[in-house]
């Protein structure tokens, strides 16, 4: 057992740090969830791509560096330590790209991935529907066969980034009426500006249009934009969802950086002893999350697959993130904490969504109890 990185990894880290020191904007960009901010973040993605830092874990032909998970984690540590901007392309890079690598065609990869890496095409996810939140398999939006492709109709919601994004991907019911709801779904990519698509931005709690509703009326999608076999969409989506994604959904680098900023805030405020315990717990939790992730990365590198363990991961980081930001607001003190433009404000609002999305924490705890502890299924 060993926590020291190989020399190559350390030189990779040094290279990343040097590049980030030279390129990370001195002033934070405007919020990602505004039109100007979105454009600024898109430009930043292009800059990252120019330095080949946009998609380090991808193979070189697609603009990556073929970095393994450990290198990816190291890059993320440096990225957030440097205070670099949020990633406007993360839906595409973290959700769609792994699926294309596993289930896409060479043609699809060649066509879709490079512009994604350069931020030229920003992707939104289109999973949820009004009646299908936790119960994702109950999707109703339809994909109807037509000449040379499919016609998509229905409604999607909670499509993050869709207010300003270019394209989207999601599951659609192509064979209605099958006994199992998971059967007969197809995984498709579509253009948010195609005829028949209406995008209605939805204001987040802080008023920013962080996601949107999508109304689809016979939107044509060519066959080339189907991923995997028609009807196999659930398997295509889930095979990637469970595994590596559990590790990459929230990188430890984010929380290590946040915990350090929290400790600095506490120091600068005179080390309030009434909040000391929560600051110590934030530092401890960030380290625990980093080590837990390294352990899983090692298992993953050793060929083990990570299944329900990623539910432990999800519950931990999402509740950790809220506690950390609540501590920060308490440190700022009453009236300063109320400022929506304060340094921790948007992070707090963002953190509040953690226990809800990507599988609510209630669902995650059910999974932990049933699949990891072997408690009886069914009743809830």
């Amino acid at each position, binding site marked *: 057992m060993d926590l020291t990185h190989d020399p190559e990894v350390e030189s990779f880290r040094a290279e990343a740090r040097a590049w980030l020191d030279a390129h990370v904007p001195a002033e934070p960009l405007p919020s990602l969830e505004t039109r100007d901010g979105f454009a600024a973040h898109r430009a930043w993605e292009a800059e990252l791509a120019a330095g080949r830092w946009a998609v380090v874990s991808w193979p070189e032909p697609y603009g990556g560096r073929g970095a393994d998970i450990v290198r990816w984690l190291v890059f993320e540590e440096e990225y957030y330590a440097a205070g670099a901007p949020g990633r406007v392309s993360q839906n595409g890079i973290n959700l769609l790209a792994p699926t294309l690598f596993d289930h896409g065609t060479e043609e699809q990869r060649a066509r879709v991935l490079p512009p994604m890496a350069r931020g030229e095409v920003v992707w939104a996810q289109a999973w949820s529907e009004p009646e299908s*939140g936790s119960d994702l398999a109950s999707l109703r939006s339809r994909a109807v066969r037509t000449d040379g492709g499919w016609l998509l109709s229905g409604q999607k919601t909670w499509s993050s980034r869709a207010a300003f994004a270019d394209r989207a991907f999601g599951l659609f019911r192509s064979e209605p009426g099958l006994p199992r709801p998971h059967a007969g779904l197809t995984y498709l990519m579509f253009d948010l500006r195609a005829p028949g698509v209406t995008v209605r931005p939805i204001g*987040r*709690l802080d008023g920013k249009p962080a996601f949107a509703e999508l109304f689809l009326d016979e939107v044509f999608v060519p066959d080339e934009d189907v991923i995997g076999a028609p009807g196999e969409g659930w398997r295509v989506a889930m095979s990637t969802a469970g595994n590596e994604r559990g590790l990459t959904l929230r990188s430890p680098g984010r929380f290590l950086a946040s915990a350090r900023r929290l400790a600095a805030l506490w120091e600068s405020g005179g080390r309030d002893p009434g909040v000391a315990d929560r600051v110590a717990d934030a530092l401890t939790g960030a380290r625990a999350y980093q080590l837990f992730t390294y352990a899983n990365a090692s298992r993953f590198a050793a060929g083990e697959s990570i299944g329900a363990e990623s539910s432990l991961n999800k519950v931990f980081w999402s509740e950790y993130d809220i506690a950390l930001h609540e501590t920060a607001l308490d440190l700022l003190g009453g009236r300063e904490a*109320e*400022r*929506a433009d304060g340094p921790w404000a948007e992070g707090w609002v963002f953190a509040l969504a953690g226990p*809800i999305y990507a599988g609510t*924490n209630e669902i995650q705890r059910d999974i932990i109890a049933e699949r990891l502890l072997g408690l009886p299924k069914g009743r*809830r």
Partner: protein
Amino acid sequence: MRFLLDAEQRDFARTLDALLTAADTPAAARAWSRGDHAPGRALWTRLADAGVFALAVPGSFDGAGALPLELTLAFEALGRHAVPGPVVETAATAVLLATLAETGDPTPAKTWLPRLAAGTALATLRAETYALDADVADVVLVVAGEQLWRAAGPGAAVASHDPVRRLFATADGGELLAQGPQVAVAAERAREWAALATAAQALGAGRALLERTVAYVRERRQFGVAVGSFQAVKHRLADVLIGLEFARPLLHAAALSLDPVELAMAKLACGEAGYAAARAALQLHGAIGYTEELDLSLWLRKARPLRDAWGTPAACRARVLRG
């Protein structure tokens, strides 16, 4: 010892609640956040007619006499219905000026208290960093140590987590209304009433959040059953109710005694219970709760500011320990 509301008090609360239920307060709150104050002003007048703003004004200034218990009932209703505007600050200003009148110059009280009681004037007060709704208020007071100023202008606007709560960094200076130790004394009394009224608002907001979430989880179905039939959901909402039900008696006791320690206990418990209700309401609504779409967001965004305004939990706990 009869630690129960009497019939008159219950009627007052019921009447106010009915008035506000009928008055589409969410629309008024949304308009207020857009800078359209007309519906809020209209609501204000009706609340004044119902006697709300007279509750912090002595009879000698056309008020109902200081009635802190009735005030908590009224402000719990204001919180439950998300009434916009500097309601707490207006009550606190009334207390501040009335106290000054006892100990010194009654002129400001004579000028303002009748209008505040009648609802024809809104007041705000900057005793901490910011003044709420200073651009709408007819009088903006600034307490700086032993000096009381009527501010020249609202000052720079600052965004709040709750867009209905519009903060202003009002500057010292303007017209000097009073100075001397009596200002500090009066300001302290005003802070106590502000804490009481804010605690009541937080409790009311917590109730609204619980009621709306209970209604939602009874309707919302996933996996073929009502979300409200899941034990984890039930237990989380049970804990919210426990928090609110054990905070209310502290609020009423604080209103009866106006004792600083009891006020701190009430503000602490109501503020934390209201915020816990918001956390649960957001989680159990899921993504839809995270948006501006539902009126629920009016209370979700208010809960934490109310927890912290006029006495953070840390400040309240410190006061409790000073005894």
